[in-house]
């Protein structure tokens, strides 16, 4: 897809009913944004607890698979809340996002983060308890989600 086709798509998003509706309201964007932040806290909490266990900082006497299983459910809950609130936020200012470097950094890291979490971190950690790679997996996951959160916050500064 060429660049001018991509920007057309982003204009289409911004002109969508949801996008227009949110832009027409003073309160809607801030309120959705607040719940986006709450979703981030839920996801962030499960990432912190899970990955700090993988890195061997906390809950050392508990099995890694148990800690990841217990946090996974809330990771998914936070993730759903983030997507449900993030999409309308995006639709309301899609064109601004297109020109925002922070937005693209976030989307790239988000894609990697999702793939890493669901296809590498979780399956590997739930199967294999004592691999030497485990702390590295924990660090990578923590780092990826930190960049997603920080660059996400940065979209608002541009």
């Amino acid at each position: 897809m060429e660049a001018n086709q991509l920007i057309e798509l982003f204009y289409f998003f911004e002109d969508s009913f949801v996008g227009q509706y949110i832009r027409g309201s003073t309160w809607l964007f801030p309120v959705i944004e607040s719940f986006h932040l709450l979703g981030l806290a839920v996801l962030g909490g499960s990432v912190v607890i899970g990955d700090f266990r993988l890195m061997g900082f906390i809950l050392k006497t508990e099995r890694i698979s148990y800690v990841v299983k217990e946090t996974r459910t809330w990771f998914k809950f936070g993730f759903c809340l983030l997507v449900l609130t993030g999409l309308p936020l995006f639709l309301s200012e899609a064109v601004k996002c297109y020109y925002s470097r922070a937005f693209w950094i976030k989307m790239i890291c988000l894609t990697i983060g999702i793939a890493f979490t669901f296809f590498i971190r979780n399956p590997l950690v739930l199967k294999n308890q004592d691999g030497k790679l485990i702390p590295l997996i924990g660090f990578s996951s923590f780092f990826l989600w930190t960049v997603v959160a920080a660059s996400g916050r940065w979209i608002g500064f541009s």
Partner: protein
Amino acid sequence: MLDFAEWLATTEWSIALHESLYLYPWIESSHVLFICFFFGTLIFVDLRLTGKVFTNLTISEMNKGVLPLTVIGFFLMSLTGLLLFYAIPVRNYQNIFFRIKILLIVIAGLNVLFFHKRMSREAKNWDKDSFIPNSMKLSAVVSLFVWSLVIISGRLIAYNWFDCDRQPQSEWINFLTSCVVDYQLYEEINGS
């Protein structure tokens, strides 16, 4: 208090903070990350108390494992939060959402006090009987609810709907934000 905030605003570092292009966003982004540390881990501590997660662990084991992160998160979050306040002191002091947030933090703090007092006295018994009193579960739910409201009101501080320089506002808004408004001036403008 307003005098104090006005004095803070004239200090060199405050001016440097709010005029810096990158420092302010960096502090604000780390504030958000430390919220994840603090509230994110607190969610699990509270959910453990209500019996929703980590039921293989006793309350003491859960607290010992996770609460240090919560405390570290709290201090870093408070530090970055204070810097954010210090960068724009007058506007924050007169911001209605900032005031609501402070009030909610006081409520959450009282809840922690109550909670911690009972916890340190009785946690050993709950471990043995794996029974958690309803008042403790209620305290956990209050904590989740009030801290969520703290985050929401904190996010809304950024919006200037009720700022002092956006008049006219209703009188009770100006009362709650202690805005000093020359109402006569507006009457004259409206009258002319």
